């Protein structure tokens, strides 16, 4: 007998725990307003009035009440007893014409620990009041006056400052959860609902099918784009968009929130809806985006206006979106010289490794353009970087090439172009020629691979090797080449900056001690790559050459 009683008590405790978990099922206790609005919509109400009031009682404490009034079907005694006051007894589960599913929404009103909840409701000429007490027990009272729909009051004792703090929370919860509902929802008489749209979007596309309604648009830079999921206008989840600058709202009666309401169930329908979204993104949206971009670039719009479109295009390129056939010739970027460039041209330049961005038009930029390269202004760096990652899938959490990735495709990170050195100073010219010859002789003697030594301009504005004393050019001293990574090998022409300040003391030295000047120059050039063996070989070769010169 005692064992049976213990079992009953344990079961009661478990039920109590389960109920407590349902009451506090949402992270924000104010989410109960969404559940009540959802129930009202399912009851066929096309107008819902939410309001709050506070009445002083004794001392500082008063009675606050949150009212949610609808004009829907209402409830009769049978519904109250079999649905409202019984958990998990909803007959809406699986009903595609309803939003509610589980029959646990109403109980969330207890999340704010109310002192009482009063539900007045009527249907078919019978009107009832269900009065829930703090411990969630209830009384059912027949009302003499007719009631239309369901009017709920959530009552709680609180001070006036507490009530003042409550108001924006109720309004905020309504606005977040119910802004797109297809009914007239009002808070203290003011409309809460807004059209299912992206009103601030610079361009937008819509798609409506039996499955879902999607609106997608490019948002101004100052607006944080979201990817939102809605069922009959009720917000299921809103999360940061996975495409830069592109906001997207998806509405479908097939979308469901999880029991905890913090995510969307990722089932077969979700997958179908996301495919529909991807088709919109890659088709009509991409077309509109490219047409807009083309128009802006052709009218010479400033970078700030173009940037959101181009950043979005960059993200789409990374996702593997290709230009629709009728958009292939549209301008999506400009070259640094102001020419319009289309997506296939960018793609081809990237395939050849000759797509870069630059801050200004420099001799290096001119050199790359002459070599059939494509140079875009630096503010177009995201698109340039994206072209190298086309089809590689999301770049990261935000689909945006990060700053390092963008910088990697700056022209000075990719190419080098020494310029011929010219001087009218005959002495300087003679000294430079002598130092070049001495250095070349020393390299040959020490069995280094360098083919030749040349003096050039490396420190011009925009040079990728500005500040460097030398660079090794693999094929010719003055032709454009990929920027060498490291100086391990001297395989090619060693090009020395004739105007470098480190070179200046070596020039007069070269008059008297050319081998020493050459050895010092090579030591400076190979700084960091100089090993004891290499140093010893160079020094030995220099000393031998000097000895020969002195003795001949």
């Amino acid at each position: 007998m005692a064992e049976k009683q213990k079992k009953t008590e344990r079961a009661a405790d478990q039920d109590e725990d389960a109920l407590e978990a349902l009451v506090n099922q949402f992270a924000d206790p104010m989410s109960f307003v969404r559940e009540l609005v959802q129930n009202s919509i399912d009851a066929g109400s096309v107008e819902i009035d939410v309001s709050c009031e506070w009445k002083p009682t004794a001392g500082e404490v008063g009675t606050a009440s949150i009212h949610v009034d609808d004009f829907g079907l209402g409830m009769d005694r049978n519904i109250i007893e079999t649905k409202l006051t019984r958990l998990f007894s909803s007959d809406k589960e699986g009903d595609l014409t309803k939003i509610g599913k589980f029959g646990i929404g109403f109980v969330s009103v207890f999340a704010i620990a109310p002192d009482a909840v009063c539900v007045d409701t009527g249907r078919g000429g019978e009107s009832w009041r269900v009065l829930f007490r703090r411990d969630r027990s209830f009384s059912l009272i027949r009302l003499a006056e007719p009631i239309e729909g369901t009017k709920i009051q959530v009552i709680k004792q609180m001070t006036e400052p507490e009530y003042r703090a409550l108001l924006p929370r109720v309004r905020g919860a309504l606005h977040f959860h119910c802004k797109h509902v297809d009914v007239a929802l009002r808070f203290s008489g003011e409309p809460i609902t807004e059209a299912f749209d992206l009103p601030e979007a610079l361009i937008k596309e819509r798609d409506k099918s039996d499955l879902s309604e999607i609106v997608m648009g490019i948002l101004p830079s100052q607006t944080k784009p979201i990817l939102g999921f809605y069922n009959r206008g009720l917000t299921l989840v809103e999360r940061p968009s996975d495409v830069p600058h592109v906001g997207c709202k998806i509405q479908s009666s097939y979308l469901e929130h999880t029991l905890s309401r913090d995510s969307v169930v990722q089932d077969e329908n979700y997958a179908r809806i996301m495919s529909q979204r991807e088709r919109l993104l890659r088709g009509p949206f991409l077309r509109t985006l490219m047409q807009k971009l083309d128009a802006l670039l052709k009218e010479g719009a400033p970078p700030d206006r173009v940037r959101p479109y181009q950043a979005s295009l960059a993200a789409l390129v990374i996702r593997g979106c290709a230009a629709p056939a009728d958009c292939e010739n549209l301008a999506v970027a400009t070259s640094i010289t102001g020419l319009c460039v289309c997506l296939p041209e960018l793609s081809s330049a990237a395939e050849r490794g000759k797509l870069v961005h630059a801050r200004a038009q420099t001799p290096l930029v001119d050199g790359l353009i002459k070599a059939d390269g494509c140079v875009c202004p630096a503010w177009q760096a995201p698109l340039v970087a994206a072209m190298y990652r086309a089809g590689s899938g999301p770049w990261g959490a935000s689909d945006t090439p990060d700053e390092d990735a963008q910088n990697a495709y700056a022209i000075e990170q990719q190419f080098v172009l020494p310029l011929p050195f010219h001087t009218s100073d005959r002495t300087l010219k003679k000294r430079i020629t002598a130092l070049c010859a001495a250095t070349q002789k020393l390299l040959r003697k020490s069995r280094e691979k360098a083919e030749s030594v040349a003096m050039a301009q490396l420190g011009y504005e925009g040079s990728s090797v500005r500040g460097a004393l030398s660079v090794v050019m693999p094929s010719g001293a003055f032709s454009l080449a990929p920027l060498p990574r490291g100086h391990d090998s001297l395989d090619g022409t060693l090009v020395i900056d004739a105007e470098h300040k480190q070179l200046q003391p070596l020039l007069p030295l070269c008059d008297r001690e050319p081998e020493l000047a050459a050895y010092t120059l090579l030591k400076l050039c190979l700084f960091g790559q100089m090993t004891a063996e290499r140093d010893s070989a160079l020094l030995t070769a220099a000393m031998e050459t000097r000895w020969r010169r002195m003795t001949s």
Partner: protein
Amino acid sequence: MKSAVATHRGMQVLHGERVDAYVEQAVALLQAAKLSAQYPIGSVSRTSPQGGSTLTGYLRAMGSRLHRGLYPQLEVELLSGFPSFKEWTRVRTDVDLCGRVLADLPAPEILRERAALDAAYGKQLLKFLYYSELLQLGLPPFEGMAIRLQRRMGDGAARFQLVLDKLDAVGLPLRCTAEISQQRSADPLITLRGDRAEAKRELWGMLYRVVSLDAELSFLQLQSLPGLHVHSVTIGTVGPLCCGSLQDAQPLDWPVSLCWQPHAAVLACAIETVQRSEQPELDQEDVSDRNNDPLSSLWKDALSAAARREYEQARTRYRYRIIKDRKFVADRANVAALKALCTQAGTQNLVYVVPP
């Protein structure tokens, strides 16, 4: 000179200011009625505090404030108090023509400029303004049918919701919402393509015909169709409407005591549900019929003894209950008369007061 009001064959023809007075009163009554989705409301405006429905949109389009005097008169059915079918159709046609008309008209600036010189352009400008506003209202058809899959039930069976909006024989807007299940069949009345349901014309045709009778007859007629199991039929009817701007309104079953003042306004909205009792454990109170409509009785009350026997057999077979309810919207002066009417009928009905 034309009189402001003319009546013929159960119709009242309103002219000039009378049209706008009527439209204003009718719209105010409908807005105060708090119509739910069981009525033919269409979609409401979500962003205006007062809302606004398909019905109010149509009525506004019939007023000269919107059409700018392009239509000289408005025909109103005296039995329903609503505009005649012809007027609804006129608005619907204009809605359909909006795009084409606006595309053919010159820009409003040009029309404004030319209107000062030629009256024909003035009329074109009015047309432009009317069609532009009409387009913004985005009115759906006032009659229509829709079917939605509610749930699949396994073994090819599925449950559906059918919604039919129409004007009844006397011009009252009504909506019938039927919930039905269909078993797997070789020749189904409803077919499913994916989750998209389509009902055969035969089903729609029958529903269109029977909803003008009442919910119970509609329920029984639908139930007689092969392979269907009817769960519920609800008919929401808006009207009759009676307002001071209609001098000769004679709504059906309407007590003469109502609407006697020149600025009086009364609207009745009835809802009638026939619902199959699918929980055998319910007690008698939960399955018995309930008539909370002071203006109509249950159909069975009018049956002869012989017919009643047959009727009772059908009730036993299908085990359904009937719930009838009605609410009113009235001007303050008519509230007492309406309350008295309800008390006399032994019903408890809501009476919303329309703002003066």
